[in-house]
């Protein structure tokens, strides 16, 4: 059966409404908030700082350590049991890999950069949202990096390529009659925008080869929008400083700056 209109009324290549803020956690060295629809992520970056346990230190370069955590009542269904799980450990690991494609920690040997990503509420696409938040937070913390990684999920639902699936679409057979699990695929993608390199690619479901390639092209276009939101969040936070030296003013700049 065909899937002609998306459950939440979006176009097939339309993203959920996004919102981003940099510098939301005072005590962290860098932090960010990123929202995609009903999925909300907070990322806090600490470091570079001394690496413990010491045997994990790398004398050649610093280490990036990510931690993905869903808060107990963040899901739509049951309470998520707090603490690390098989799922959260895996997502922490792929997040780390997606981000280490750009960060350069060669100037901080033996040190670690800790990234804590917390989800107060989720509605599918949480790893992508987490990566987006973490990328902003890393830049905010002044970590040297090639680019800001952007991530989004694309998918295939009932013969249509959809961008940025929500929870209902990931479980489409439960909502639309005549579809079964074979008809749905969910593919989180992260890229380095300046080069187009893919730093995260996972898939859940079944998809024909040609459709996959088409879906990835759609993802790329969507990721440019995501990246623009990320960049603007950072520019907004530091805009006050630019006005300074340009000699422009400045009146209402003060407040924005104090939040940093």
């Amino acid at each position, binding site marked *: 059966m065909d899937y002609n209109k998306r459950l939440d009324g979006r176009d097939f290549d339309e993203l959920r409404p996004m919102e981003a803020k940099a510098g939301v956690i005072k005590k962290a*060295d*860098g932090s960010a908030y990123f929202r995609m629809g009903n999925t909300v992520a907070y990322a806090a970056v600490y*470091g*570079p*700082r*001394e690496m413990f346990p010491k045997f994990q230190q790398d*004398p050649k370069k610093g280490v990036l350590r990510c931690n993905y955590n869903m808060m107990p009542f963040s899901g739509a269904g049951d309470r998520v049991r707090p603490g690390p799980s098989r799922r959260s450990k895996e997502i922490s690991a792929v997040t780390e890999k997606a981000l280490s494609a*750009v960060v*350069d920690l060669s*100037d*901080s*040997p*033996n*040190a670690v950069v800790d990234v804590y990503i917390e989800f107060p509420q989720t509605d599918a696409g949480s790893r992508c949202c987490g990566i987006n938040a973490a990328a902003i937070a890393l*830049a*905010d*913390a*002044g*970590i*040297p*990096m*090639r*680019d*800001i990684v952007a991530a989004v999920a694309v998918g295939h639902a009932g013969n249509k390529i959809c961008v940025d699936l929500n929870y209902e679409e990931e479980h489409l057979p439960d909502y639309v009659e005549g579809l079964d699990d074979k008809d749905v695929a969910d593919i989180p993608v992260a890229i380095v*925008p*300046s*080069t187009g390199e893919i730093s995260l690619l996972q898939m859940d479901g079944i998809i024909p080869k040609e459709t996959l390639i088409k879906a990835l092209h759609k993802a790329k276009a969507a990721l440019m929008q995501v*990246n623009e939101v990320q*960049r603007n969040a*950072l*520019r907004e936070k*530091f*805009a*006050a*400083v*630019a*006005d*300074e*030296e*340009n*000699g422009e*003013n*400045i009146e209402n*700049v*003060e407040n924005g*700056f*104090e939040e940093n």
Partner: protein
Amino acid sequence: MGLLVKDKQVVVPGDILADDIGFIPGFGTYRNSHNLVCSRLGLVNIEGKVVKIIPLSGKYLPRRNDIVVGRVFDILMAGWRVDINSPYSAVLSNKETPEFIERNEDLSKHFDLDEHLVCKVTNVTSQNLVDVSCRDQGLRKLRGGRIIHVNTHKVPRIIGKKGSMVSMIKQATGCRIIVGQNGLVWIDGEPDKENIAVDAIRKIETESHIPGLTDRMKTHLEEITGVKISLNEGDYNGLQ
């Protein structure tokens, strides 16, 4: 095409700064084929053909000859381990103290745990092992007063041109002030004057981006304390 950004513009990692091979990548930038790309969040600084980034955030990384305020957090066989508000701790050797230390002397008599000191970074290795020294004029243990943390990247603004800004606060409040490059500031004086100095430093920190900072701070301090300040750019050795 050439340069794609203005001088002193805020840039974000991944921003293309120039698409011309004629520009030379400086700190915080890298070359990607013919593009010059930003790799640190900060302000663009263009000096002739060299494009570099002045960072706005990030931890303090020790550099040689920096004056820093540190805290002793461990006593070693022949020296002390000093926390210098950086990812890497520093070592103060017992040969680098103001007074001579006998063999087998109890090191905690000179610097005990949790005591603060002003010291100078003498060496930084490729693995970021840091040596500091207390054997120079004005380098010593800090007794009394209070210590506040400020943004490392705002330290030059707090010191001012040749120390003009700190000397202004000192004149107005009569406090002794030491600004460490690592973002630790030691202030010692009358308690209410100390408060004025702390507020002044916080004001510099939040308003450093608004032009005419020095003049504004001068009138602000004169208003609060009633002391006439004469602006002088004395010789600043990082201490005073």
